[in-house]
């Protein structure tokens, strides 16, 4: 759909973005790969030579590894479950006729724009503090013993904080998807005698399935990488050390770069597995 002239101009104009991203992807990736095969301790002797797959084996066999996988899966799974289920319900609610819909939308979306460090700190101190937090006040009001949330129920607490941050995203996308549902389809189903619950099950939910898949995939990629929320709340203690956080600790805190890099490669592979599914969907959409 164009001439030779415009095609060569197009290539030229695409070059900066492509070259930059290529560099951004390849250079650190190759470095991480190289480090992962080395004994590399910047503070204790630096580059101590090649060690083959040692780091990969050690990363997986360390006592911290499996708990970190469990913590990661718990957080990702918990947040997905909460945000998708509540998100669907909320999207349906927000799609109903009401007064002040625009304002409610804004209220619901707001948490997404809150800096992760802020939301983590606010939740940690003002809500979950075992002495002065609002939850503690609430528990005492009902005569219960306040809970030290972030140490006694650390994973659920993190799940709650992160869900609060991501619920707006899920709701907004699902709401957009619901609004794109053809009202005549629902009316046709109603004419065909389908009661509301059946209409939801047979028409609304299938219509939402694609949006739900996208929410799940995109959130998974972001959730696998959550960092600040753990950094400022528990610092990885009380069983909240996720894979990401474990790698961070190996690399920057204990400065065992080789080991951390091996972990990084695992993280990259994990993210790519999810990414492939996401790209399939996005790619299909490009063809349409």
């Amino acid at each position: 759909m164009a001439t030779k002239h415009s095609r060569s101009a197009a290539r030229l104009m695409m070059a900066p973005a492509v070259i930059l991203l290529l560099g951004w992807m390849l250079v650190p990736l190759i470095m991480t790969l190289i480090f992962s095969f080395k004994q590399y301790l910047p503070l204790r002797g630096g580059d101590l030579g090649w060690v083959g797959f040692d780091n990969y084996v050690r990363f997986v066999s360390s006592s911290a590894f499996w708990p970190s996988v469990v913590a990661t899966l718990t957080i990702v799974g918990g947040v997905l479950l909460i945000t998708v289920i509540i998100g669907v319900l909320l999207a349906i609610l927000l799609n109903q006729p009401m007064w002040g819909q625009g304002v409610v939308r804004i209220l619901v979306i707001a948490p997404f724009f809150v800096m992760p460090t802020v939301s983590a700190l606010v939740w940690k101190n003002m809500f979950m503090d075992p002495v002065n937090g609002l939850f503690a006040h609430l528990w005492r009001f009902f005569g219960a013993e306040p809970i030290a949330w972030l140490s006694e129920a650390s994973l659920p607490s993190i799940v709650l904080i992160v869900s609060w941050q991501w619920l707006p995203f899920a709701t907004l996308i699902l709401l957009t998807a619901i609004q794109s549902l053809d009202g005549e389809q629902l009316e046709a189903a109603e004419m065909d005698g389908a009661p509301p619950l059946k209409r939801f099950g047979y028409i609304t939910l299938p219509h939402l399935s694609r949006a739900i898949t996208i929410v799940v995939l995109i959130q998974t990629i972001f959730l696998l990488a959550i960092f600040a929320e753990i950094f400022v709340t528990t610092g990885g203690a009380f069983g909240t050390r996720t894979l990401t956080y474990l790698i961070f600790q190996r690399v920057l805190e204990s400065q065992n770069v080789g080991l951390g890099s091996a972990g990084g490669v695992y993280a990259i592979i994990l993210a790519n597995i999810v990414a492939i599914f996401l790209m399939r969907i996005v790619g299909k959409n490009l063809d349409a």
Partner: protein
Amino acid sequence: MGQIKLNQVTKSFGDVQVIPPLDLTIGDGEFTVFVGPSGCGKSTLLRLIAGLEDITTGHIEIDGSDATDVPPAKRGLAMVFQSYALYPHMSVRKNIAFPMKMAGIDEDEQNRRIEGAAKALNLTDYLDRRPGQLSGGQRQRVAIGRAIVREPAAFLFDEPLSNLDAALRVGMRLEISELHERLKTTMIYVTHDQVEAMTMADKIVVLRAGVIEQVGSPLELYHSPRNEFVAGFIGSPKMNLISGAEAEKNGATTIGIRPEHTDVSMTDGVWKGVVGVAEHLGSDTFIHVHDTGLADMVTVRITGDIQAKHGDTIYLTPQMDKLHKFDAQGLRIE
């Protein structure tokens, strides 16, 4: 001046050749219409002439000089697009001025031409509006205005009326024809509507699958279509094409008779059939006749009204001197 000559032009998209080698000359001042069913390559051909697409092989000459590798802006052609392609963020005045601004024409001259075009096109009151505030017909006129002020060697129209409603289309058709009468500039007009082609063209180019089926004046095409395709495509309602015994009787594989060249009687005639649907337009009546044993359906057109209802028996008599004959290859037999 605006003579355009295509010399062995081809166009391929990847491995698919959409236009096989094609020769065509469009004379200076001629109103030429490319017509054909959708996907026949008529728009592609226009875009090749405009320079919006590269031709794969061959040459394009404009006014005797080779324009094959000349970029669109330098070909001296103006184009009116199907979607009008007005710049939505500019006022009508700025839209019309844009090509002149790009050409570096001084402002007094720009204003003079804008005023002239606006007057000719009835746009004077709308010069300060945005395209979004105009009706479809007005937008169309702005697009034409933008083309006129460049004083191009030729105008290219890409299905310019297809986004307008039926009533407006007839009006704009007249306006474009009048514009051509006044400017006497070469115009190439692409359409899939054979009525537009018949009413506007000096010369019609009928295309199918990138191949020119016939070139000629509207009446040439009507009276002596070169093949079955042109015969079926030009004229409304369509020509009845009949093959089989009836055709062989006339020494042809297929015979064609236009609906308006068939006499109708309720009592006797050459062919007998049953009335399916009779469409009464007042001035004319179209009768779709079944069970003639000739073809699935034969359409006839008679002037005025006739009392024919669904299920009536009807007799048709073709006017033999208006009969078209085609051979096994679908080519006309003289």
